[in-house]
């Protein structure tokens, strides 16, 4: 399980980078200033590292970490506990099942791949929230959230890819 690139001996630091980025996404999603105002909901930044490292390094982004990031998202955002955690786990399950299909995508296809994962997360959240409150919610907010998250993945994935190449790296066993 040795890996290439990154800090060399400082394996722990590079191993926690995916989770740290997930937690950073939670914080950024809940900062008080929104460039889009109230018209568009905050993007789900936390889903981006979960999706990215679930594809390229699932040993670092495990279902447990996805659950924990979702749970902290629930805690920080003030939602009932478990809603985003369950949505993230459901998304993780889909990515895990279709990893070959998702990982084979490139360019615009990669964005579509993430959009599919976002659609799963938003749909799961919508369904769980509606069941939780036993009230059918308006879908407009979820559609906006899906759209803005998918679009903002384009700049964020560049940062994630740089961090992966520079600090995390692939597994040695894959070469």
């Amino acid at each position, binding site marked *: 399980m040795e890996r290439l690139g990154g800090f060399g001996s400082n394996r722990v630091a590079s191993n926690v980078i995916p989770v740290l980025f997930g937690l950073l996404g939670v914080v950024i999603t809940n900062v008080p*200033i929104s460039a889009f105002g109230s018209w568009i909901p905050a993007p789900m930044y936390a889903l981006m590292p979960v999706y990215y490292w679930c594809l390229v390094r699932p040993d670092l982004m495990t279902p447990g970490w996805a659950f924990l990031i979702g749970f902290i998202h629930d805690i920080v955002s003030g939602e009932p506990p478990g809603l985003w955690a369950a949505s993230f786990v459901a998304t993780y399950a889909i990515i895990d099942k279709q990893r070959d299909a998702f990982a084979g995508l490139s360019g615009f296809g990669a964005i579509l791949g993430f959009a599919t994962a976002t659609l799963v997360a938003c749909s799961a959240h919508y369904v769980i929230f509606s069941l939780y409150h036993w009230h059918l919610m308006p879908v407009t907010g979820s559609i906006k959230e899906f759209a803005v998250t998918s679009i903002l993945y384009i700049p964020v994935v560049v940062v994630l890819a740089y961090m992966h190449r520079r600090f995390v790296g692939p597994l040695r066993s894959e070469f």
Partner: protein
Amino acid sequence: MGNGSWKISRSRGRAHLPLTVVAVLAIFLVLLGKAQSSLFDRARTGVIDWMQPALEASRTPMETMGRWMGSIGNIFWVYQENLKLKEENARLKQWHNTAQVLTERLKRYQLLLNAVPDPALSSVVARVIGRANHPFLQTMILDAGKSHGAKPGQAVVDQRGMIGRVYLTGEHTSWVILLTDLNSRIPVSIEPNTDQAIMSGDNSPMPLIETLARGVELKPDSQVVTSGDGDILPAGIPIGVIVKDGSHYRVALFADQTTAQDVEIVDFKQKPEHPPSVGQQELPVTAAGLAPAAPQPQAATSQVMPVPPPVYKPPLPPGQKPAVVPQQGPANAPVNNAEPGDQ
């Protein structure tokens, strides 16, 4: 950008929780949260208290960036905006003078009528350090908590009107549920007829007016204020104006929840109101010229002894023993007004 350019790992290691276990855990967590909604409140406030420095640190650059992005578009409209603001300022000055005159007149009327003054309000100024803008949730985090006197239920207002209510307080932070949130319910009064209603959020920018009395027709642009029912919120806090929406009425809020940065937490200390004590002459029977009914025998009324009202006993001078009062109660009732040395 493509993911295909990287080799993917299939190994997830051995020491990790399997997906099925995590999924079951997530479902259990949802059910647990539904059954005990306040179970994670302490954890939530603890996490936010812990994250407060990070949230405050991230606030400044984001605020600068937001202001910078907003100012790009404003550059082209500065002249028109300036003219509009001057006109609005002149109009507001007129209203300010009118408000001052009316306030003085109201004070005089209250003095003449010996009216009960409004309860004193104090407030804590707090900054918004977090704002959850999610599809089904609209909350704020403020940097004032229990240590600053913030308590659940208090109203949060900005310069224009009410924004929401505090629903959870940590040591240094508070959570505010916004008026537009799905879980928000506020008793309101609609002027000029002071029609009572409940304003409920539905995640749209304009909350809905509910439980309005049958047949009441509201006029658009009627002002909506808090009614103060239930002694939870002070009465008269401006909220917004009525807007007709099909067969429903909605409230266009005065306060802009998305741009509010500095807010006030209003501390409302309404003293509990007790009914005045009724004298013998004020009983309806006595007032009608009839003799009051004779007290019924103890055994016929109830087997339960009524609790006597607390009586203030002045402190005895040193050396003087209290007089023993014969008890009217049951024989086995303890007599507590004798000093231990007397027995």
